[in-house]
C-alpha cells in the first residue's frame, strides 16, 4: 500500500508545482526585454574601450562603433513605449492545467504501468525459499554456488545432467570437464562427458568425444559403453572393416545375459552388411525389447532404425532436402489420384511444418473438395485448419 501513498504524494507535488506559482501574489517586477538589451550595449561600449586599448581598432573606428551602438541603445529605448508591460493574469488557466496533470498521468500510467508488481532484485530471489522455484531458478542457485566454490565436484555432477535436460549441451560438457578437473578422472565421468558431446553434436562422435571415450578405456579397460561409441565412430568415419572388428570384440566380451548384447549383435550385423555392401535386414523386434541404458541412441532397435541412422548421418541441409522430397511425393500422389483422409491430414501437417503454407492451404482446399459429403472428415480438416497458425 506504500506505493499508492507514494503515487499520491508525487501527484500532489506535481500539481502544486503548477498551482503554487499561479496562486502566489505577483510581485510585479520582472526583467523587461529592453533592460537586458541595453545592458548588452553598455557592455559593448566598454569593450570598445578595451579594444582601443588592445590596439585592435583605431580611435576613428572606435568612435564610429560608439555611434553605432548608441543608435542601437536609442532604438531599444523606443521599444519601451511600444511594448506594454504585462501584468497580472487569470488564475483559471493554471488551475485548469493543474487539474489536467493528474488526469493525464493516472490515465496513461493505468494503461502502461504494473503498480502491484514488486521489485525483483536477483539477490533477493536467489535467497528466497526454494518452494515453487522453477528448474531455471534452481540451476541459477547451483551456478551461483559453484561460482563461489568452483572446486565442488558434487555440484558439477548435479548440474551437468540438469543442463543436459535443459538442452544446454555445451554447458553440460563444461560441467563434466570441471568435475574431472576437480574430482579427478574416472571412467564414469569421461563416459558422461563423451555422451554429452555426442548428444550436443547431432549424435556425431566428434574427435573430442572420441578422446573422452579413449580416456575412459585407459582407466577401465573393460568398459563397454566407450567401446560402443568408438565402434559407432569407426562406421561413421567409413572404416567399415575396423568397425566390424570392433563390434565383434564387443560381442565377444558378452557372457550371454547382458542387456546390451542384443544391440551389439544387431550393430555387428549392420556393420557386416555395410561392409559387404548389401542392405541391412533388421531382425524382428528383439525379445529383450527395452534398449539397455548403456546402449547408444543410434542403436535403438526398430524398423526405421536404418532410415533414422541414414538421416542422422546427413547434414541438416541434406536432411531437409530428403524430407522435402518425401512431402512432395506424397503431395503429387494425393493431388493427382487422391487418398485416405489420414494421408491428407499428414500432408497438410507436413507442409505447414516445413513452411509451405501456401501449398498447405491448397491441399486443405483439395481435401475439403474430396470429402465434401463427409461431415466427420470435414470436422477433422476444420480442426486442423484451426490449429494452424
Amino acid at each position, binding site marked *: 500500500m506504500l506505493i499508492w501513498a507514494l503515487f499520491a504524494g508525487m501527484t500532489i507535488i506535481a500539481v502544486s508545482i503548477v498551482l503554487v506559482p499561479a496562486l502566489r501574489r505577483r510581485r510585479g517586477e*520582472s526583467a523587461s*526585454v529592453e533592460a537586458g538589451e541595453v545592458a548588452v550595449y553598455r557592455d559593448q561600449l566598454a569593450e570598445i574601450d*578595451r579594444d582601443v586599448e588592445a590596439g585592435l581598432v583605431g580611435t576613428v573606428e572606435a568612435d564610429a562603433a560608439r555611434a553605432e551602438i548608441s543608435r542601437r541603445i536609442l532604438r531599444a529605448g523606443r521599444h519601451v513605449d511600444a511594448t506594454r508591460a504585462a501584468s497580472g493574469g487569470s488564475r483559471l488557466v493554471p488551475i485548469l492545467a493543474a487539474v489536467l496533470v493528474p488526469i493525464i498521468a493516472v490515465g496513461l500510467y493505468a494503461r*502502461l504501468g*504494473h503498480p502491484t508488481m514488486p521489485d525483483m532484485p536477483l539477490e533477493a530471489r536467489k535467497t528466497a525459499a526454494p518452494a515453487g522455484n522453477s528448474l531455471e531458478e534452481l540451476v541459477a542457485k547451483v551456478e551461483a554456488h559453484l561460482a563461489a566454490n568452483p572446486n565442488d565436484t558434487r555440484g558439477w555432477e548435479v548440474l551437468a545432467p540438469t543442463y543436459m535436460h535443459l538442452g544446454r549441451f555445451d554447458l553440460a560438457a563444461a560441467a563434466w570437464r570441471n568435475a574431472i578437473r576437480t574430482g579427478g578422472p574416472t571412467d564414469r565421468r569421461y563416459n558422461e562427458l563423451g555422451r554429452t558431446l555426442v548428444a550436443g553434436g547431432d549424435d556425431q562422435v566428434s574427435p573430442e568425444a572420441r578422446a573422452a571415450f579413449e580416456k575412459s578405456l585407459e582407466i577401465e579397460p573393460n568398459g563397454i559403453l566407450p567401446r560402443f561409441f568408438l565402434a559407432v565412430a569407426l562406421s561413421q568415419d567409413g572404416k567399415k572393416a575396423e568397425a566390424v572388428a570392433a563390434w565383434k570384440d564387443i560381442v565377444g566380451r558378452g557372457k550371454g545375459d547382458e542387456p546390451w548384447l542384443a544391440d551389439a549383435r544387431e550393430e555387428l550385423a549392420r556393420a557386416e552388411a555395410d561392409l559387404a555392401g548389401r542392405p541391412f535386414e533388421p531382425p524382428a523386434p528383439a525379445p529383450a525389447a527395452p534398449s539397455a541404458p548403456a546402449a547408444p541412441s543410434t542403436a535403438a532397435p526398430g524398423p526405421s532404425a536404418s532410415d533414422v541412422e541414414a538421416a542422422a548421418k546427413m547434414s541438416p541441409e541434406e536432411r531437409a532436402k530428403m524430407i522435402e522430397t518425401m512431402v512432395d511425393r506424397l503431395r503429387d500422389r494425393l493431388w493427382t489420384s487422391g487418398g485416405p483422409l489420414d494421408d491428407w491430414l499428414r500432408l497438410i501437417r507436413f507442409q505447414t511444418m516445413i513452411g509451405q503454407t501456401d501449398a498447405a492451404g491448397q491441399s486443405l482446399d483439395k481435401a475439403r473438395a474430396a470429402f465434401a459429403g463427409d461431415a466427420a472428415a470435414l470436422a477433422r480438416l476444420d480442426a486442423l485448419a484451426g490449429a494452424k497458425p
Partner: protein
Amino acid sequence: MIVEIGHYALVLALALALVQSVVPIWGAVKGDERAMALAGPISVGQFLFVAVSFAALTYAHVVSDFSVVNVFENSHSTKPMIYKVSGVWGNHEGSMLLWVSILALFGALVAFFGRNLPQTLRANVLGVQAWVAVAFYLFVLLTSNPFARFGQPPMEGRDLNPLLQDVGLAIHPPLLYLGYVGFSIAFSFAAAALIEGRIDAAWARWVRPWTLTAWVFLTLGIAMGSYWAYYELGWGGWWFWDPVENASLMPWLAGTALLHSAIVMEKRDGLKIWTILLAILAFSLSLLGTFLVRSGVLTSVHAFATDPARGVFILGILVLFVGGSLTLFAARAATLTKGGLFAPVSREGALVFNNLFLTAGTATVFVGTLYPLMLEATTGGKISVGAPFFDMTFGPLMVPLLIALPMGPFLAWKRGDILAVVQRLAAVMVLSVVAVLVTWILKGHDILPALGVGLATWLMLGSLAEILWRIKLFTEPGVSLRRAVGLPRSAWGTFLGHFGVGVMLLGIVAEGAWKIEHVLVMKPGDHIRVERFDVAFERAVPNSGPNWDEVIARFKVTDGTSNPPIVMEPSKRTYRTRSMPTTETAIETYGLFSQLYLAIGEAQGEGVAMRIYWKPLVLLIWIGTLIMSIGGVVSLTDRRLRVGAPTPHRAASAAAMPAAAE
C-alpha cells in the same frame, strides 16, 4: 516498487511537460504574467521527476531486477558494477531516457540561470523546449518504454553487447547527448525569437554560453567515440566515415558555425539570419543523428521497414520540428531587423566565409550519409559511400577554411586591412613554408603530407601569433604579462580552439601518411621488425574475467635502444553469455604521441593472425580535440558570457574588464 515509482515519475514528467508546452506560450501571447511564470517551476519539476525515473531504472540495473525487460535484455548478474550502471544507457530504451533527462536538465538550467531573461522570451523558450520534451516523452513511453515488465522473470539476463562493455563507451553517450541536446536550447531560443519576431544582441548573449556548452560536450563526445573505435575495434582506424559517426559530425559542424555566428551577433548585431538558421540546423541535425542511430534504419532499411513503429515515430518528430521550425523561419525571418553593414574583408566577412564553408562541409557529409540510404529505400540497390568520397569532397572544402582560419582573428570588425594581417603573419608564413620543405626533404619527397604539415604549422603558429600580438610580446614586452592577465578569457578560448585544430591536423596528417601496417600470421617464437621495434611473440596464455574468458598473446617488444624490453599483451575475449568475441588491443605510447598497436585476429592453425601498427603522432588527433574543448571551457568562464548574473550590469562589466577600467 521502486521501478514502478520510476515509471509513474516519467508519466508525471510528461504531464508537466504538456502543461509547460501550452500555458507559458499562451501567456506570452496574451500578456498573462501568471501563465508565463509557470514555465520556470514546471521545467524544474519536470527535471526532478525525470531524474527520479532515471534513478529508478539505474537501480533496477544495479540490482539485476530481471522483471524489467530492459534489464533482462541488456544486463547480466556477473557484469562488473560499472557496466551495470553504464548498461542503463548502453541500450535503446535507456539511452532515450537519458536523452529526455538531459533535455529536462537543460530546461531546468535555463529556468534557473535565466531568471532575468525578458519574461516573454523565457516563457517562449521554455515552451518550445517543452514541445521537444513532450515529443520525446511520448516516444519513450509509447514505443521504447524502459519500464516494461515480465510477470515471470528469468533468472539471468542476456548481457550487454561486449563491445559496449568498455570505459570509453560508458562515458561516450552521455557526452554526446549533452552535446546533441544542448543544441535544443539554441533551437528553442531561435524558435522563440521567431515567434516574438524580434532578435537582438542580448539574445545572442544568452544563446552563446548554451551553444558553447553543447559544443564542448559534443566535441568531447565525438573524440571519445573516435578513440574508442581506435582501441576497441582492433582495426587501428580512428574515423571510418560511418553513418553513426557522421551523424554526430554534422551537428558539430553546424554547431561550430553557430558558435562563430553568435559572436558576430553579440558583438556587432549582425548575421542574425545566419545565427537563427544555424541554430535550427544544428538541432535538426542532432535530431537526424538520433533518428539515424535509434530507428535502426542504418542496420538495414528493410529491418526498419518491417518493424517501423520506432523509426516512424522519430521520423515524425523530425519532420514536425525541422519542417515546423523552417516554416516558421521562412515566415518570420524577413521581419527580423537587419544587422550592421560590413565590408567583405572584415572580421564579419571572415566569419561569413567560415559559415559558408562549414555549412557546405555539413552538406557533403549529409549527402554522403543519406544518399546510400535513400538509394536502398527507393531502388533496393546497396552502395557504400566511404572514405574516398569524403576525402574528395569534405577534405578540399576544409582546406581553404583552415588556410583562412589564422587570419580571421587579426581582422578588425566592420572593415579590416588584409595587408596588415599578411604583414603580421609574414613570419608564420615563412616558418610554415620551411616546415613544408623540411618535411618534404626528410620524409621521402612526398608533397601532400608535407603540405599537410605546413598547414598544421600555419594553424598552430598563426593562432599563437595572434595571442602574442594581442599581448604585444614583440612590440612592448614590458606590458605583456599585464596584458595577458587583462585579456578577456574568450580571447584565450579562441587561441586554444584554433591551436587545437592545428594540433589535430598534425596528428591526422602524420597518422595518415606515415603509419606502418603489418598483417601476418605469427606462431609462438616468431618475431617481426616494425619500424625500429622488434616484436616477439612469446606464448599464448589463457585467462578469465568476471563474465568473459580470454586468450592473451604475450609479446616482448624491444625498441632498438638499450631500454629494457616491454611486455605487450593483446588478447581475444569471448563473453560467456553472448559467446561473442572482442579484441582487446595492446597499445604502447612512445615519445609522448606515437603508438605501437597490437591486435589479435583469428587463430590460424598453430599461429594467430596479428595486426601490428606503428602510428606516428596519432595521439595528437585526440589531444587536439581536447585542446579545442578546453578552449571552449575557458571561453565559457569568461564573465561576460554569464547568463543573468544577479549583480547589476555596471558592476559586473567593471569586474570583468579590468583593462577597460584603467
